[in-house]
């Protein structure tokens, strides 16, 4: 007997942006295969797809999809926007860079989009299962992307390191999840919190072990010390365009699930995870900022700086308050613009046959291209946290939230490490403005690249001068949580 089942298509509404992006990714593969002459259209198709998805995400009503598996709420919306923004900006920058380093384009764009779908699922995950699936859907295309540029021997090394570390972190995370499932009998994040209170599990040693495993797994994903060891190597070995992408979007998605699990699933354990995260944040800022001091490669320096910035964002997370979470989200939005901007200028320095990744390559940039040097100056000031840029405001909110929650020592440490970071950021500025240029060739700025640089500049300065609207947006997004 064949029973006809009425399919409820409206149930798909919360995942429409994801479905659209999967469609665009498949279309891109087909386009690359059957219309090889029109390859220059691929980045624009990607950008249009992402912009449409962004509009859908911003316009969507808050909804709970698939029986609590997906929570398309305001919290998810903010993180989805960050991830979509990263892909839009890096795609705009990629066109010429892919040609310079001779990267296969079709696979690049479709894999980026598939990874983006994983991030959107992570941002909306309401269940440990969807969280894990989103995490792997994000990570697997990135492993392939890192190793995509096979002619460069460093990329396969970076890919294998990333793959092994990512797989190990996922396994630890899964074991933690299986313990949580065993103790609470559910994988739904919101119900985990209820069961923990109902069964009075807060002092249960198995739950504390599970918490430790979850923190380790998430620590790997957001590259918090002491689980950051893969980060500098992977970021240096990957093509720069991918480093720019990896240093923002997967990190933001990692923070999305981190925050969701801690705030929605394990709020009862804040007494345990608050101090642990405070130590991790301090350690991350120390390792990132101090190791960045002695780097000769600008790319590797930015890799360490992105580790340090994960430490700053952890400051907001560890407070356990809505204000802290909103500050962390605000900071990640600012970080998107300033970090992508800095990487964009780094990519401008690349030329065929020359990587242009060392500090020597940026010497005398002001004489070669005053505009690029001025932009880099703004982005580096913002990364340091100097007003009136977005980085200052973002850091200010984070420190304020952590201080209000009573983590005074951590705040003092953060300020000190932030002061240390000024040395290596401003050293680049000195090289750009005070030294003689080593190369004299003219920098080629493609239209997409100038658009991306313009957007980043607008983001950094606009959010620095008018920060209130962004914080209001993140606070409003969190009001339903």
């Amino acid at each position, binding site marked *: 007997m064949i029973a006809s089942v009425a399919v409820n298509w409206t149930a798909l509404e919360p995942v429409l942006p994801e479905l659209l992006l999967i469609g665009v990714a498949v279309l891109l593969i087909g386009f690359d295969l059957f219309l090889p002459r029109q390859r220059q259209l691929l980045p624009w198709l990607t950008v249009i797809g992402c912009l449409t998805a962004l509009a859908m995400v911003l316009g969507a009503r808050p909804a709970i999809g698939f029986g609590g598996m997906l929570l398309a709420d305001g919290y998810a919306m903010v993180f989805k926007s960050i991830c979509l923004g990263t892909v839009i900006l890096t795609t705009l920058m990629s066109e010429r860079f892919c040609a310079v380093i001779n990267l296969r384009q079709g696979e690049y764009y479709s894999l980026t989009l598939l990874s983006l779908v994983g991030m959107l699922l992570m941002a909306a995950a309401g269940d440990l299962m969807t969280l894990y699936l989103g995490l*792997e859907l994000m990570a*697997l295309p990135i*492993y*392939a992307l890192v190793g995509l540029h096979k002619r460069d021997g460093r990329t*396969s090394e970076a890919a294998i390191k990333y*793959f092994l570390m990512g797989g*190990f972190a996922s396994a630890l995370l899964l074991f933690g999840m299986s313990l949580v499932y065993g103790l609470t009998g559910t994988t739904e994040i919101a119900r985990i919190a209820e069961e923990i209170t109902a069964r009075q599990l807060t002092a249960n040693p198995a739950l504390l072990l599970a918490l430790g495993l979850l923190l380790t797994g998430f620590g790997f994903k957001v590259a918090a010390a002491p689980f950051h060891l893969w980060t500098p190597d992977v970021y240096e*070995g990957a093509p720069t365009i991918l480093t720019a992408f990896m240093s923002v979007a997967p990190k933001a998605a990692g923070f999305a699930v981190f925050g969701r699990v801690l705030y929605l699933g394990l709020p009862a354990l804040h007494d345990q995870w608050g101090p642990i995260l405070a130590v991790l944040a301090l350690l991350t800022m120390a390792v990132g900022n101090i190791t960045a001091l002695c780097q*000769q490669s600008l790319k590797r320096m930015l890799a360490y700086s992105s580790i340090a910035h994960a430490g700053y964002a952890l400051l907001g997370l560890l407070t356990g308050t809505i204000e802290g979470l909103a500050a962390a989200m605000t900071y990640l939005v600012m970080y998107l613009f300033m970090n992508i901007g800095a990487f964009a200028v780094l990519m401008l320095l690349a030329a065929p046959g020359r990587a242009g990744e060392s500090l020597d390559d940026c010497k005398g940039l002001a004489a070669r291209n005053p505009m690029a040097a001025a932009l880099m100056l703004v982005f580096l000031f913002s990364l340091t946290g100097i007003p009136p840029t977005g980085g200052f405001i973002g850091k200010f909110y984070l420190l304020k939230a952590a201080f209000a929650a009573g983590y005074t020592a951590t705040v003092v440490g953060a300020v000190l490490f932030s002061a240390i970071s000024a040395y290596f950021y401003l050293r680049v500025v000195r090289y750009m403005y005070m030294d003689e240029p080593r190369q004299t060739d003219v920098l080629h700025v493609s239209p997409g690249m100038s658009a991306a640089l313009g957007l980043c500049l607008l983001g950094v300065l606009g959010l620095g001068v008018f920060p209130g609207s962004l914080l209001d947006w993140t606070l409003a997004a969190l009001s339903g949580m």
Partner: protein
Amino acid sequence: MIPLSWYMALSAILFCIGVCGFLTRRNVIIMFLSLELMLNGVNLNLVALSHFLESLRGQAFTFFIITVAAAEAAIGLGIAIALYRSRRSVHVDTVNQLKG
């Protein structure tokens, strides 16, 4: 009937063997194997818990983990082949160009 604690002990032992193997062995393929062992420890844990809790979520989760592990193995072996082509070895001690 075998009690739940035996299953959980076995899965914990499997997981720990995987962790030790991952941390001590230097061949990339053996490290993959250790990762799979860790994942199977998790799978066993989830299935046993699912049976004793009488909830199907754990078993559904296991199916997802098995599927993802297959995709992960495909990508990992692909990367290992790319590594072998450029280095003529899959030993992690030879993977040392990037440091500092």
